[in-house]
């Protein structure tokens, strides 16, 4: 499921909708509604995602985009401060560039 069948590049807004959907699946609809997810939402401070939830989120990105995006590799290249400050917009930009 979730595998991209088209080679069309998603724009920033479409990527936001897609990733918001993944986050909702990972943290549950009830919490996602409370969180008011936006491109500025940070993964740790705003969305309160822990490491195993970021694993789930990464897996969803891998399943959707396949080999065109090395999301885990990108995350592991970050230092602690970068990880703490990681927000949705940075991920959207990264995926947009990789497509």
């Amino acid at each position: 499921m979730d595998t991209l069948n088209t080679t069309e590049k998603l724009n920033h807004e479409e990527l936001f909708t897609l990733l918001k959907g993944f986050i909702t699946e990972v943290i549950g609809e009830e919490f996602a509604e409370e969180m008011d997810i936006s491109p500025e939402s940070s993964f740790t401070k705003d969305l309160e995602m822990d490491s195993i939830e970021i694993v789930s989120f990464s897996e969803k990105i891998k399943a959707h985009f396949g080999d065109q995006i090395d999301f885990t590799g990108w995350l592991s290249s970050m230092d602690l401060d970068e990880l703490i400050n990681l927000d949705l917009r940075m991920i959207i930009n990264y995926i947009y560039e990789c497509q």
Partner: protein
Amino acid sequence: MPIIEINHKKVHIQELNKGAEQTVVLIHGMFSNLSIYYFNIAPVLAKKFHVVMYDLKSHGMSERFEDGYDLGNMSSDLIALMDKLQLEKVHLVGYSFGGLIALKTALDYQNRISQLVVMEAPDPQDEKARGIIEQYSKEFLEHYVANFTDTTKVQMGKRQMEKNHRMYEFLFNKTSIKADMIREKYFLSEVNLSEIHIPTLLLYGSDSNCTPTGEWLNDQIPDSQLELISGDHNIPIQEPALIAETIVDFLSKTLTKTLT
């Protein structure tokens, strides 16, 4: 999300580089989950090996169990996982309590393990190490805080507090985990570690309370070597790149030695 069913229970696994000839299985510690390997250590090992990570029962995204937290059961869970994935022989890496599971598996299923890496396994009999077992929950929280929050500005949020609380409440109040742990108090003195004839790498933190156990294990296990990594009990979080490289070096060198 890769979830497989073993003995009618769901187990969360992650695999990298499935095509590789040899497999490394990574076992996490108590009250942690496979994410301790997923981001930094596993990708380095996967350049050379097929890597399998799994969440222990009731941990991470694996299904909850009410009992079977002693080393014998945790070890047969691992063998059942290997059978399910059709892995006849693997390299085994275990951290903390996962290191004790790795030792138990090496003793009971020697022919299924090629090489062994034990990181920061505590001696459950040692008073200081027992302190660590008592504080396993703290280790999990510290991992979370060290990796994913800014401790000076952010407290763990309401949702994470509730999620953690639910896990500890279940494990401490509704499972046999505490009693099973107490029963393992004399594990290291009850078994004969000189029977382990598998090349073994012991990785301990230079400032860890567990390091005397690493030194003792090094004396007991015939084909072992001890390497100290700068840090304390949390070396996989403190020095993931160094840990990954050291493991790859060990597994590769010993393999070359065996083949020539």
